[in-house]
């Protein structure tokens, strides 16, 4: 047992929020990283374990398998109990539990009364390492996932986003995959293949567990050792990274559905999570499309009155980020909206932002960051997730890194990444 207690300096004491200094961090001998934070505000405990396996780890054969596996672990039982028994046990202990799959990671959470911490750790260990999902149970879960795919197919925003990924990233890149996978594959991928995938990636040295709540950290460490200490290390394969496509034009996708308004998404590639450019780009996204005083809102909605809503987003991931402008409007106005968005972006490239705008974005981002760390479950989730692809320290350093951005940094990053000549244009319009 190698116990490493890491205490970090308080980087930013602003807003009285949690920081690295408050965590107690241990890595078990089998490589499982455990982060514990005492937070006695409410009598709850919250667990979040993130596995460094997401849709990016799938080959075509496994398209959608990571997400299907997340469902099987959550709902279809372990070696000790079937799915119905697991659900009943969770209910009996007052537990909220869930899971999330992204391109980079898969995450499982449990939140329940603090007197049930022992139960939570025991069942969490069983789910993560002793799930067995028999074929018959798996077939039932396939149906639920197919329903979930149908929901996203019906939702114009989801449909636009997911459809744009394969064109944006190209067939060889891991982020081109739709996390939910194809209906065909979800319906047919064999149980044994998914089980083998589970055994390969769900290794303790491929996970970070964060526990936050009304608990005693030392006693909790002992429980974690008891329930997780004996699982063997694994050898996890490298990610299937592939090159980005070369793009020098606007590529279009048009989708028709039985809907009431038009949806336009214009997507480009942004920097990876460990790039220092991501901080100015978070500021840029806020100034372009975050709220009613943003550039796109003021121009397209207030001045031109051509959209119902408009925003700009930037998501970071391990390898590449995604940037997109998104608007809802009268379907007939889509060409004009696209042109107006590009004019706003070109104006930013040519003339930049102002010091006042920079300060405004920093205030907004800082407030939102602290708000995101108010609830125990969110704290556990955020630290575990970030630790899986860039390190948990990122969360603490984030407000400081935003504060460091200068106007020159912001305008340089805007010039570098805003692209009005080549992007993926996705529209969803009434049939």
């Amino acid at each position, binding site marked *: 047992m190698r116990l490493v207690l890491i205490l970090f300096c308080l980087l930013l004491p602003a807003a009285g929020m949690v920081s690295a200094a408050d965590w107690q961090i241990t890595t078990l001998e089998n490589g499982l990283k455990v982060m514990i934070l005492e937070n006695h505000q409410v009598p709850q405990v919250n667990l979040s374990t993130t596995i460094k396996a997401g849709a990016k780890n799938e080959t075509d054969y496994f398209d959608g398998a990571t997400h299907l596996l997340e469902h099987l672990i959550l709902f279809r039982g372990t070696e000790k109990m079937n799915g119905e028994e697991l659900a009943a046990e969770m209910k009996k202990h007052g537990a909220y539990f869930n899971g999330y799959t992204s391109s980079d990671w898969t995450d499982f959470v449990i939140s329940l009364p603090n007197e049930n911490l022992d139960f939570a750790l025991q069942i969490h260990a069983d789910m993560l390492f002793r799930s067995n999902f028999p074929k018959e149970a798996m077939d039932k879960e396939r149906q639920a996932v197919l329903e979930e795919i149908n929901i996203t197919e019906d939702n114009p925003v989801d449909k636009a986003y997911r459809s744009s990924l394969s064109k944006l990233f190209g067939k060889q890149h891991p982020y081109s995959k739709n996390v939910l996978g194809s209906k065909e594959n979800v319906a047919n991928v064999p149980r044994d293949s998914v089980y083998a995938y589970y055994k390969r990636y769900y290794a303790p040295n491929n996970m970070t567990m964060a526990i936050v709540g009304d608990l005693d950290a030392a006693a909790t460490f002992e429980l974690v050792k008891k329930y997780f200490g004996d699982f063997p290390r694994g050898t996890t394969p490298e990610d299937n990274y592939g090159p980005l496509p070369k793009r020098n034009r606007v590529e279009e996708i048009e989708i028709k559905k039985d809907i009431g*308004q038009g949806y336009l998404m214009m997507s480009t590639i942004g920097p990876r999570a460990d790039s220092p450019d991501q901080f100015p780009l978070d500021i840029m996204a806020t100034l372009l499309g975050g709220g009613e*005083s943003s550039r796109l809102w003021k121009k397209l909605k*207030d001045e031109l009155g051509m959209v119902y809503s408009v925003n700009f987003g930037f998501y970071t991931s391990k390898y590449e980020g995604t940037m997109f402008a998104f608007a809802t409007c009268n379907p007939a106005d889509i060409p004009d909206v696209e042109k107006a968005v590009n004019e706003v972006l070109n104006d930013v490239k040519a003339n930049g932002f102002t010091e006042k705008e920079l300060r405004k974005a920093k*205030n907004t981002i800082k407030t*939102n960051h602290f708000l995101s760390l108010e609830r*125990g479950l969110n704290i556990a989730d955020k630290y575990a997730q970030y630790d899986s692809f860039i390190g948990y320290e990122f969360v603490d350093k984030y407000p400081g890194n935003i504060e460091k951005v200068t106007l020159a940094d912001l305008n340089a990053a805007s010039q570098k990444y805003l692209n009005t000549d080549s992007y993926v244009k996705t529209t969803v319009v009434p049939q």
Partner: protein
Amino acid sequence: MKKIKILSIICLLGLLLVFNGCGRKKISLDSEGYGKTTLANGITVLVNHDETTQLTAARFLVGGGLLTETAENNGITNLTLKMLLKGNASMTAEEITEQLDFLGANISVACFKDYGVISFTSLTENFEEVLAIISQSFISPTFPEEELTKLKHEVEGDLKAVNDNQTQASSRLFWQTAYGDRGYGLYSDGTLESIAGITVEAIKKHYQKYIGGNNMIFSIATDLAPEEVVIKLDNHLGGLKADAEKVSAPDMTLQPEKEGFVSFDRNQSFVFMGYTLGHLKPAEIAYLDLVNRIMGTGVGSRLWSLRQVEKLAYTVYSQYNINKYNAVFRAAIGTDTAKVKQALTSLEREWKRLIDEGLSEEELVMAKVNMKNGLIYRIDTKANRADNMAYYEYIGYGYRFILELIEMADRVTLEEVNKFIKDNLTGECKYLSIVGKK
């Protein structure tokens, strides 16, 4: 000479402090940090003091909501509240938006069945500046014509998109099916026809009629000292008029047609099936919460079997809504269009089982654990506390109601819960809404 000057300044400051405190009621907090007072103009002030973060969440609740509207002016509450932030005596719409965004304040405006609310969350250091802007907007709004045109365009977009989301569309249809085109049956955004007819004059009248200190609740969860909150609020909003009209109770007659249907060409259909209930006593809300936990809250609930065993859905749950004059308890399922009939049969079966058999002793024990843990999520952030204090105070249960509900859970007996089910889930108040392919 220097000493006299200093003494004069001290005396002046003392006088100012005394003057500032005159006429203000003191606020004392209970052991959980909650307190209540009233300003001279009638504003009810609810405070939760919490120093764990330097964040402040505040709500300005204006009584009335959809109950102040008719089918003809449906959407006017929403537009009136939004128009407050589109210009006041000292700032234009653009200046208000710029300044609120500059302060990093998360602002939202929403209209609900019984009330409308302007909410904000900010760093505490920016609280007073945000408060000053919103207060000024409540006291001296200018309601510019061109801003109303823009807002109406925005709402038009929301209305065109509402049916793009089946869940939202089916939920809206459920209320409309039960109550028709009035009161609780109306939709907060209104309709394309009603919005088109709303003018600046109508909004001014609506403002005059319903916005006033005697029809407002201000709730706040903050690390600021409660006395400081009251002083700041009084300084900024003490000048708000106190002559709002009393909101009338709605006509609660239920519609005779029990089923609503809207057709769309989609993969999925979305169904709500459930019961409209009358006004509930506090203990009855505890019963309802417990029943809901077993019926359809989360994994392991009775409705969960529709997903887990019957393979009918990805989304299936039950929920309840408590309003000032009624409550609704309903089940929801999003299912493949080809399976709607089967889903309806299964929902019917589960409702019948609930009414015939009630809960078991074992289920009640389980429900109590889940209720106590689940309710914590409604008070574990400052925003949630500010929301719930204002909401429960306005609908008549008191600002500490969530805390009281948590305490009530252990006292509930099986007989009480099962009697509540039998007495309230009756055929005449059962409604159904379906949005999907015909």
